[in-house]
């Protein structure tokens, strides 16, 4: 991506408050992924919008709003098993309570029958609350599963696109040096930032090391890390849709051996390298 072409400040100010069409948002998000300067500008404008919000003259809360909120929190805490208040209540039921400062606890003014009614009401409320929580929990689970399915579906669609796109580039990666057993094949779709690598006959690497794939941009800028992988016992390794920026026009791919956490720039020697063919070839 050409970072010399930054997003106009006017658009960054609107992006910070979500006021752009989805298409424009996607374009800007793509740029932001690789541009620290624009990210900082968005953060600044986001802070400015927050200032606008904080300039609102405050009005009083509706009567009982605080109590309603705290009751909800208390009910949730109770259901979650954090029952500090309940513990205190139990202590009251069992006998005298030691109070900081040595003051004796105030004598209950409600009769035992009153406590029994209150306890019964609490049990009913707790039962209803528990049902509500269970419903919420299931909704959250379903929501999470739906999101996961959507994500998997998106990835599957992208893999299909990667494998069939006429604009996809292909490369055959062979050892940069003389020996030749290891090799890899890769498919790269610059417009989507999608990449697939299938390697075989790779030598094992030490426990603290890993193979790292690099994209070599066509404009000669610094190689972009494109994912870590380790071969299995047979020397095979696969890399599917690593997180890489979209829109990077690349001329070649390379593989190096790096420390296990990966590197920000490749460490020589390059163990596998291959030029990408032209899109659509």
């Amino acid at each position: 991506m050409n970072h010399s072409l930054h997003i106009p400040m006017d658009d960054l100010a609107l992006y910070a408050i979500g006021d752009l069409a989805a298409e424009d948002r996607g374009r800007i998000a793509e740029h932001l992924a690789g541009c620290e300067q624009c990210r900082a500008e968005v953060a600044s404008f986001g802070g400015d919008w927050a200032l606008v919000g904080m300039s609102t003259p405050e009005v009083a809360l509706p009567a009982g709003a605080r109590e309603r909120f705290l009751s909800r929190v208390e009910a949730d805490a109770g259901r979650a098993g954090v029952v500090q208040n309940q513990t205190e209540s139990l202590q009251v039921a069992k006998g005298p309570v030691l109070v900081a400062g040595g003051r004796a606890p105030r004598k209950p003014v409600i009769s035992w029958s009153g406590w029994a009614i209150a306890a019964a009401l609490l049990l009913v409320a707790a039962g209803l609350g528990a049902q509500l929580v269970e419903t919420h929990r299931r909704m959250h689970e379903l929501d999470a599963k739906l999101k996961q399915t959507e994500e998997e579906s998106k990835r599957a669609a992208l893999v299909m696109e990667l494998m069939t796109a006429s604009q996809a580039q292909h490369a055959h990666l062979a050892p940069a040096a003389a020996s030749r057993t290891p090799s890899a094949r890769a498919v790269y779709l610059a417009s989507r930032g999608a990449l697939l690598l299938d390697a075989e006959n790779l030598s094992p690497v030490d426990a603290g090391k890993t193979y790292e794939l690099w994209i070599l941009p066509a404009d000669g800028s610094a190689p972009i890390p494109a994912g870590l992988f380790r071969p299995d016992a047979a020397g095979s390794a696969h890399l599917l849709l690593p997180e890489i920026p979209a829109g990077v026009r690349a001329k070649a791919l390379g593989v190096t051996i790096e420390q296990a956490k990966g590197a920000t720039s490749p460490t020589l020697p390059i163990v596998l390298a291959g030029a990408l063919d032209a899109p659509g070839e």
Partner: protein
Amino acid sequence: MVFSELEPTIETSKGRDFLSDEDLLRRVAERDQSAMAEIFDRYGRLVYSIALRVLKDTAAAEDVMQEIFFRLWQDPTRRGSDRGTLAAWLAVVARNRAVDGLRRRKPTDPVDEVPLAAKGDLAEEVVQRGLMEKLQRQMEKLPAEQHRPIDMAFFEGLTHNEIAERTGLPLGTIKTRIRSGLLSLREAVGL
């Protein structure tokens, strides 16, 4: 001495220890209800006021407020580390959730994910109300040509396209006025 022991507590005019927002959020993560109550006391009115200004409906505004704070209680880590101060984050989330309600759009637009630059310790100043009064004065001082589109964008939830339609001004002019107004506010407040 461990690092946490170096974190300051602030003595307020009321003479009691004043926990920072981050301290409170840590306690909320440990399910401390009193810490959540303190956060609510600090920012409940801010969130409610913003929601009310957007929605112009007290019941709907309270719903927004209750939901925001309850979600914070359930997951105090949902405000990422790059989301600025708690006050700033709450102000933006309040606006976004209220606009969601106004437009009945799915509350899934990732607007809350936009990072917010932390501009000084807004939280402490907000608590003292000094900054908020200063902001109100500065907003009033902005030229109407900047103030109005910012108001329309933030509190009425209008897009710049809609603002351009309503005002009859070119899109580019609206964009520029919004950006200039924000920069003026930033400079005036000195953050």
